[in-house]
């Protein structure tokens, strides 16, 4: 029997595979998030609660007087409320339109061998390569002739141009992960294209739909440049309203703060719900290769 006791102590070595202590990382990240996320949030809340009769001026670090006046006005303001509804409605419309257009193309890119694939991939990517404002202005010129400017359908159409590339790429990445054998098996069992789409592709591509759909909705909800150029001043989504409070006639922080929250709250709700369903790797895989 061997077992000579070694000279070194037998307690567990403390150096994990990937070096330093996790606790420091948590500390650093926590601090960073407090400064980068928490602080602005608090400041925005304070701005929204500023008493209109007193205001909030230097050198006060905290407003001297708080009131709910701005919230009351905002929540009764028909412009703001209609902007909220418009943002949501346009978001849903864009998501549906994008999904319907994207799925067949994503399938073709993922599963079908054909010669022009790389060219199509690049073409699908192109709206991302060209700066958004150029797309917006270019589309604006055409929409002028088609009488689509200042209309809601016009905004929906132009936003879709920006959301299609991501949706196609995310769906293509997801569909590519579906083993070709499954589709072949379905074929041998008698399924035609519609059936395969309905029973195999769509159910198995569901994570891609969720990731892409959420990304699309969020993109649409917070989109500014294209909406502004095509829609303003008749189509006003929440970001456009926010713009008028920040860049328009004058800077009105309290109003901006309130609209910010009206913008943010649905987004954060969607975000937290999505967090449970969304898979980062799906999202990243769609956007990770150019």
């Amino acid at each position, binding site marked *: *029997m*061997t*077992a000579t*006791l*070694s*000279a*070194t102590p*037998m*307690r*567990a*070595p*403390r*150096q*994990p*595979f990937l*070096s330093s202590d996790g606790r420091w990382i948590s500390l650093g990240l926590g601090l960073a998030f407090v400064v980068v996320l928490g602080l602005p949030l608090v400041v925005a809340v304070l701005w929204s609660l500023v008493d209109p009769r007193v205001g909030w001026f230097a050198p006060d670090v905290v407003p001297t007087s708080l009131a709910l006046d701005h919230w009351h006005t905002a929540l009764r303001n028909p412009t703001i409320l209609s902007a909220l509804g418009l943002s949501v409605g346009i978001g849903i419309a864009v998501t549906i339109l994008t999904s319907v257009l994207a799925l067949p193309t994503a399938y073709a890119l993922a599963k079908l061998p054909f010669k022009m694939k790389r060219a199509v991939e690049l073409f699908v990517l192109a709206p991302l390569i060209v700066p958004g404002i150029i797309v917006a202005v270019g589309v604006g010129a055409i929409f002028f002739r088609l009488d689509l400017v200042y209309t809601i359908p016009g905004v929906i159409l132009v936003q879709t141009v920006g959301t299609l590339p991501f949706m196609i790429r995310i769906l293509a990445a997801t569909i590519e992960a579906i083993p070709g054998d499954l589709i072949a098996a379905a074929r041998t069992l008698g399924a035609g294209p519609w059936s395969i789409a309905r029973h195999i592709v769509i159910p198995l591509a569901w994570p891609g739909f969720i990731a892409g759909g959420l990304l699309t909705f969020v993109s649409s909800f917070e989109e500014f440049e294209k909406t502004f150029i095509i829609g303003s001043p008749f189509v006003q989504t929440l970001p456009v309203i926010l713009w008028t409070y920040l860049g328009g006639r004058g800077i009105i922080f309290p109003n901006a703060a309130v609209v910010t929250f009206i913008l943010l709250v649905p987004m954060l709700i969607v975000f937290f719900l999505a967090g449970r369903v969304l898979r980062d790797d799906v999202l990243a895989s769609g956007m990770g290769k150019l």
Partner: protein
Amino acid sequence: MSTLHIDGVAKSFGGTTALHEVSLHVGDGEFVTLLGPSGCGKTTLMRIIAGITQPDRGSIRIDDRAIHALPPERRNIGLVFQSYALFPHMTVAANVGFGLKMRGIPRAQVAARVAAALDLVDLGALADRHPRALSGGQQQRVALARAVVIEPDVLLFDEPLSNLDAKLRDQLRDDLKILQRRLGITAIYVTHDQAEAMALADRILVMKDGRIVEEGAPVALYRQPRTRFAAEFLGQTNVIPVHLEAGQPLMPWDMVGFARTGIADRHVSLRPEDIAMTPDAEGPGEVRGVIFLGASVECRVAIGGVELRVRQSGSGVAIPEIGAPVRLAARIEPHPLAEGVHSALSVGDA
């Protein structure tokens, strides 16, 4: 000149214990195999030796150097992975030279040693290719070259041949053994394939449920297993209950079991190739199943209340009918097995 000592290494993941205080020692230049089914802890133990996983308790020494507190990059251990783990963005030569580069060895020397290592595995011509252009067998050779070129104290193999097809596996297995012998590096080889273990090892350590249940040289372990688990895991065997009658241990067909007497009911291990089967109209046994395996014929025979497997090799072997009456005889003395399913022997016993 490197011996490896592992003392009391234990590891749990959450609520499951992967390793229960394992200790083992490997002599200089020895080729040792960790053999066991999936989940027995062999891969965990290997990763702990390499430093990729941290044990909860225990120590690891190479010669007199305690290495369990060192990060993997300072342990001077070579590791060959099942997935090859070649760096896809580097050429074969760059892959093999990587470890030398990390040690700060000058370029000219690196080039020379890389060339030598690639010659050792017969891949000199492919030095400038990228891994994706190589076959599985070639990739594994590159991984091997990469691990040995740094002249490690210990070489670890994590089921390196599992991803290869059978013919290639045999070929590479033999090359591996030759290489290890030639270089004289202490090696630990993890596998679930008992044939591979027996072909390669100087000593086999059989693992189950996070413990080493038995160890020994391949011949001794195969022919005289002490535990039932080892007997059944290595090759095939019949585990036969033996009853005492008038002080004599008897086999199911009323044959005297074995020489050692005075022990209560036991199990013995008798391998299918060690049973002779002859047709006998009054024979106590009856053939229940026949499988032709090419080189051998395997029969299931019901006898004395148990069912045994019998194997006979050679082209001249008769292939019996099902239901044929036969007589069985043990060619060698059956081997008694220790009671209990585990016998957690501490290793080091000769």
